[in-house]
């Protein structure tokens, strides 16, 4: 029962920890009632709730910590959560876990036990687990873990009394779980050198130091004084020897121990097949079924919906019917009649006018394509498919020196290569970052460019197939060659897979609208700036000079001279360039071979201005310029070869 109680400063503390959304706050409320104070943890802006309760006549202070996934903190909340565990000297730490995700959450229980902390495991939301046919043998789990375990559904008032009884009777116990012999050896090598008192077991501290926990490294330096150098040397030696897979080994060892602990503890009711989502989830990660499923997603999500509906139906309506037939003629006529200055007419309604080119490209060609792409992307994202795709392509990516984590920037690149280039900083090694940046710059078309190209090529039989084969081939070939040239480690990849589910219309709508707002606020102004620059280039003659310079290259590629302008557009924005091709195609200036060659070359061609600037910021001048030159040369070389090949073979002829 909850009590109104004056804090004495001597109350024992109960600390609630666990991942977000496991019901910690419900447990907190059920223990403390309505009386709680919420304040920032000293020296931080992270809120911590404190309340009081009385169990078996004894007063306790109860602390509800921010969500944490592991004892190795990544966020400020996790850092504060850990500080509470170590500094508040709790009488009991209640680790709240979701019964449905016991296997995923148990590794943190191991960490807490390993740290020598007084842990009680609360397996919450057990009613939901039972509903899907899971039975959890709490007594057996308690026996195996060696700490008190309570099964509960606190939200439904189930298990509260058992929790109170367990808290009243709590006696700290020690348990040790052994890792593989080689890892144990490394842990011991560091642990024996720890002399200071840290309120956590040396074994746990050794593991955290090996995982480069900066906060603890600092604390160790301060506490160990003369011994600090020897300890740091031992840590560095192990980290260097296991530089490729230390984190992965520790995670996998904990998984292995948890699997053993849960053997016989979780019983799935017979006759209940795994849910459809679970079966589908497995299929998406198995190469035999995953690749066909990926092709289905690409076909219906991108080709039919973005390419067919977005780039076809909606663009035809907006660009063809509304802009070309109504708005543009009206605007041009109005300006011809009312504005005497040539330069101003050119600026607004001329060949590169703000309205006739900038607004038309941004609103009538690119927006419908980007919009439909954002809808498809949000649906795939909300279903939980992307982490599975990461697992599926990990094998291929390893061959080219990347791990599955690189799927994130690659997938993002299909949205916008500029932001994807920023995300490459999350890759573990410099080698991976350079490779990912190169591949993004070269062979990953952004959503808008891809949409326009899909729309363009889907009307020419075989052209899209040639484009896909060319891009995939270049991606793999350059990746493989670059991986051989750029030295460095090949890191391992490991990630938790969240559940798969049906996309929620509300989520899809909100994500799509949010991204469309981003498009309008950030991309639309760029289209306007590009129009102004092209207008200035036209009036000053600089554009004509640039087009002249590029004409020999265009001729080598077998393209008409006018295509040079599309390549210049492409440097401002990739989709701007693709929209330029769209204009050429609708005016009948490109035959099927020329269209395919131009589309492949433009896709591989140099990054847009924004991407180049971000690339320079992330990778520095030297790497960026090398990538720029390499990509430009490669794009034209591929374009030239493809033109020869298509003409000689008669394909698309």
């Amino acid at each position, binding site marked *: 029962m909850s009590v109104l109680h004056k804090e004495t400063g001597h109350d024992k503390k109960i600390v609630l920890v666990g991942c977000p*959304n496991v019901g910690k706050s419900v447990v907190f409320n059920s223990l403390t009632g309505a009386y709680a104070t919420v304040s920032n943890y000293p020296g931080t802006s992270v809120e911590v709730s404190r309340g009081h309760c009385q169990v078996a006549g004894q007063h306790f202070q109860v602390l509800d910590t921010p969500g944490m996934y592991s004892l190795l903190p990544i966020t400020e909340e996790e850092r504060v959560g850990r500080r509470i565990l170590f500094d508040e000297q709790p009488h009991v730490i209640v680790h709240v876990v979701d019964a449905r995700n016991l296997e995923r959450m148990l590794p943190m229980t191991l960490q807490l036990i390993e740290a020598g902390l007084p842990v009680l495991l609360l397996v919450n939301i057990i009613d939901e687990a039972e509903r899907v046919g899971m039975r959890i043998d709490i007594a057996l789990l308690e026996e195996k873990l060696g700490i008190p375990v309570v099964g509960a559904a606190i939200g439904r008032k189930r298990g509260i009394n058992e929790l109170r009884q367990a808290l009243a009777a709590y006696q700290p116990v020690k348990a040790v779980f052994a890792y593989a012999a080689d890892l144990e050896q490394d842990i011991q090598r560091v642990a024996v050198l720890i002399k200071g008192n840290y309120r956590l077991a040396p074994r746990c501290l050794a593991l955290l130091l090996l995982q480069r926990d900066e906060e603890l490294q600092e604390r160790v330096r301060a506490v160990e004084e003369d011994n600090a150098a020897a300890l740091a040397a031992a840590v560095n030696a192990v980290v260097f020897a296991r530089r490729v897979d230390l984190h992965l080994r520790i995670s996998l060892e904990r998984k292995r121990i948890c699997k053993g602990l849960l053997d016989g503890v979780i019983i799935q009711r017979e006759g209940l097949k795994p849910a459809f989502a679970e079966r589908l989830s497995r299929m998406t990660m198995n190469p035999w079924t995953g690749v066909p499923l990926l092709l289905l997603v690409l076909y219906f999500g991108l080709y039919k919906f973005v390419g067919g509906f977005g780039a076809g139906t909606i663009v035809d309506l907006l660009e063809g019917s509304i802009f070309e037939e109504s708005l543009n003629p009206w605007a041009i006529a109005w300006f011809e009649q009312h504005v005497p200055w040539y330069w101003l007419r050119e600026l607004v309604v001329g060949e590169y006018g703000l309205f006739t080119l900038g607004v038309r490209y941004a609103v009538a060609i690119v927006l419908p394509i980007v919009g439909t792409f954002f809808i498809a992307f949000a649906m795939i*994202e909300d279903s939980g498919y992307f982490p599975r795709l990461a697992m599926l392509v990990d094998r291929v990516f390893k061959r080219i020196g990347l791990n599955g984590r690189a799927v994130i920037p690659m997938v993002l690149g299909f949205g916008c290569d500029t932001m994807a280039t*920023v995300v490459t900083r*999350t890759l573990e090694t410099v080698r991976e970052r350079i490779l990912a940046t190169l591949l993004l710059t070269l062979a990953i078309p952004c959503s808008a460019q891809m949409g326009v190209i899909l729309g363009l090529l889907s009307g020419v039989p075989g052209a899209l197939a040639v484009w896909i084969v060319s891009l995939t081939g270049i991606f793999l070939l350059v990746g493989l060659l670059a991986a051989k040239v750029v030295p460095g480690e090949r890191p391992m990849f490991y990630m938790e897979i969240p559940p798969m589910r049906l996309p929620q219309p509300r989520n899809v709508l909100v*994500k799509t609208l949010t991204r469309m707002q981003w498009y309008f606020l950030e991309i639309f*102004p760029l289209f306007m700036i590009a129009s102004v620059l092209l207008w200035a280039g036209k009036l000053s003659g600089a554009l004509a000079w640039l087009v002249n310079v590029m004409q020999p290259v265009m001729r080598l590629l077998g393209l008409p001279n006018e295509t040079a302008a599309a390549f210049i557009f492409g440097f401002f924005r990739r989709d701007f360039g693709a929209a330029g091709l769209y204009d050429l195609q609708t005016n009948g200036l490109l035959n099927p071979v020329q269209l395919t060659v131009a589309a492949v070359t433009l896709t591989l061609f140099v990054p847009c201005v924004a991407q180049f600037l971000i690339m320079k910021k992330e990778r520095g001048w030297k790497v960026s310029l090398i990538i720029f030159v390499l990509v430009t040369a490669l794009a034209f070389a591929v374009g030239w070869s493809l033109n020869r090949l298509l003409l000689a073979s008669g394909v698309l002829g």
Partner: protein
Amino acid sequence: MKCTFCEHELTAEMLREEGCGACLGGCRKIHCPYCGQENPVVPEIFDKLFRRDPSAPGKGSKP
């Protein structure tokens, strides 16, 4: 709000963090500290319009 890639919870603190400066007109995305995914931050107006329970706290609030 959850990360759209790894589904780790993104908290109010993270939403208040400054952006990387790469975007024109200020940051409207949040990098997940666990996987690096760029998550769009839902503008207040969409959050209000499409919130399931209008009386519930908005984005960035502790669940």
